[in-house]
């Protein structure tokens, strides 16, 4: 690149930058200018010196897991502990990660048990090494067998059934349950829960990694079967896609979702989504770390040998005003 061309590029960049400045002055709808970020009232725990490992089956980039992590981090801050977070959707690799935590002699382990059989060996090994382990998010039926001390999470089947009850009460006969990740036990359990209360429930699988594909598939289903009166999505981003499909297909069906994000919460406020079944992932992450802290420091046991349920919690037009601000902070 010769000198004059280089100068031209520099000029172009300068022009673009100044255009940006000008436009910046007059554009609305963007981020609100805040003088400080959210009020993380300074963690009160000081430095307790504990190290807690959290190992999940998260596939990176889901808003749901982001909240679990946010809760765990806040809990670590509040208790003055050090959090070591790691994740792998592959059960064998998750087991290795638990083994890593044992090897590095952490003070406590919090793990998800999406695949209890694959992880039971590692959880037992942690017990043998004298490291207390708690389960959260998944594994409600198996956590005791694996040797985990406590469980924090939602009962997916119960959550689905709760949604199903409410759909029946509203007169729904033929819900469509949208599974965005093929082969997920938790998602299947939710749909089975809905079906246990509304016999006409039908499942559909969509590619959750592609917005256009999700919209087209739901739209196609609505076109193929006009008797669908409810759509049940199992994640907040999918609910937003479903809204688009319903709009395009001119469907009169009602929309119900699991989980929340800021955008879905807004749609609940606007009446486009009937209600959300929230399992409060932030609480799951927070409680798992806090419970380990209390257990190590004080010998506490939460739940008294029974799972501690973080859901199903309803979010609907009645309580959305309270919850909406929290979704924007990524804590709800």
């Amino acid at each position: 690149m010769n000198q004059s061309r280089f100068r031209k590029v520099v000029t172009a960049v300068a022009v673009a930058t100044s255009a940006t400045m000008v436009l910046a002055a007059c554009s609305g709808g963007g981020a609100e200018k805040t003088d400080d970020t959210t009020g993380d009232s300074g963690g009160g725990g000081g430095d307790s010196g504990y190290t807690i490992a959290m190992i999940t089956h998260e596939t990176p980039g889901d808003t749901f897991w982001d909240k679990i992590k946010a809760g765990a981090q806040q809990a670590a801050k509040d208790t003055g502990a050090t959090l070591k977070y790691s994740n792998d959707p592959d059960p064998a690799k998750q087991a290795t990660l638990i083994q890593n935590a044992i090897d590095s002699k952490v003070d406590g382990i919090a793990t998800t048990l999406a695949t209890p059989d694959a992880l039971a060996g590692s959880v037992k090994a942690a017990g043998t090494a004298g490291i207390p382990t708690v389960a959260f998010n998944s594994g409600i039926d198996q956590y005791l067998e694996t040797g985990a001390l406590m469980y924090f999470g939602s009962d997916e089947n119960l959550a689905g059934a709760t949604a199903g009850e409410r759909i029946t009460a509203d007169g729904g006969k033929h819900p469509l349950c949208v599974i965005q990740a093929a082969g997920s036990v938790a998602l299947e359990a939710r749909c089975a829960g809905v079906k246990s209360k509304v016999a006409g429930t039908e499942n559909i699988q969509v590619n959750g990694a592609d917005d256009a594909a999700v919209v087209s598939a739901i739209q196609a289903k609505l076109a193929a079967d006009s008797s669908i009166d409810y759509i049940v999505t199992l994640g907040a981003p999918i609910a937003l896609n479903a809204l688009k499909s319903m709009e395009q297909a001119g469907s009169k069906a009602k929309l119900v979702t699991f989980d929340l994000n800021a955008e879905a919460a807004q749609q609940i406020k606007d009446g486009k989504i009937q209600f959300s079944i929230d399992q409060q992932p932030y609480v799951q992450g927070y409680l798992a770390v806090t419970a380990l802290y209390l257990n190590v420091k004080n010998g506490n046991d939460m739940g008294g040998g029974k799972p501690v349920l973080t859901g199903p919690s309803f979010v609907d037009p009645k309580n959305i005003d309270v919850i909406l601000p929290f979704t924007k902070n990524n804590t709800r």
Partner: protein
Amino acid sequence: MSQDPTPAPTSAPKPAPAAPARPAAETPSAVSHGAHAEASNRIQLGWSNRLLARPEIGALVAAIILFIFFLAVAPAFRSVDSLMTVLYQSSTIGIVAVAVGLLMIGGEFDLSAGVLVYSAGLLNAMFSYQLGVNLWVGAVLALVFALSIGWLNGYMVMRTGIPSFLITLGSFFILQGANLGVTKLVTGSVSTPNINQMDGYDSLNAIFAHTFSIGGASLNITVLWWLLFVGLAHWMLTRTRIGNWLYAVGGNAPSARAVGVPVTRVKIGLFMGVAFLAWFTGMHTLYNYNTLQASNGIGNEFLYIVAAVVGGTLLTGGYGNAIGVAIGAFIFGMTSLCIVYAGWDNNWFKAFLGVMLLLAVVVNLYVKNLSTLRKVG
């Protein structure tokens, strides 16, 4: 085949599939007359042979068979609405697939395209939202970013000589990680905020995601863009010098270089073409859905490649055309949605899809073999 790229511009729509034809061309009297006697030196094929020699014919046959099949088994497919939905689904894959097809004709490969679609959208949304600037600024910035990724892919491939599979696998991972990392860093979450209240949204939405109402059915503008891009690519391949260069570069890069084809520039241009259409699709996704999740787009790079391969593009380069790739994308869109229209068990979705795609490839291959065999005989 690339010893004689010079006499190309006269007529023949496609210079590429000359390799199997050459023995036939040399046997009749042509050799003694020398190369300049173009009329006698060119073999005359019957219309059926000429038809069968086209790369897209296998895909077309498969598409027609599948279309009739689905019309028969899926009553819900028999409406204009459904066809529009299928076309929309096809266009979201088909737009990038056109460029991926050209790239593959040029003998290269791009695994980063699926994620780049979302990188472009995320960059636009976050830049404009966080700084509160007009969305157009973010869109242009995202275009510059996408093109530079495409340029970098091409430059690295040409500069290092490492296969494009590896180079773009690298950029795939980098973009995937950066999408997540940067989004989390900037927004505090892993999805972008809603941008539909911002300045510039309406005009951008009109360009990238406008929905027409045609006789009660709604058609997304991406379908028109898709047809336009296919038309442009087809024109470029068949009517311009660049088209000849593409086939030459994909067929045999060293000999293309020897006759003066700017191989490096052509290949970098192809990667930038993929990046451009990835940006375009990213813009559609952003302005159609208003918020994006940072983890999305993974896996779509294969769909683009599948569409190109089903459409008759050879993985080894030098053979294929744009219309074939469009038909490939249509087959994918139709199959993925007609399984829903037909009301088949969802758990089998991927298996059905795989069978349909394999079938399409086999039909495609069969027809192509048939055409080359008949030409010799």
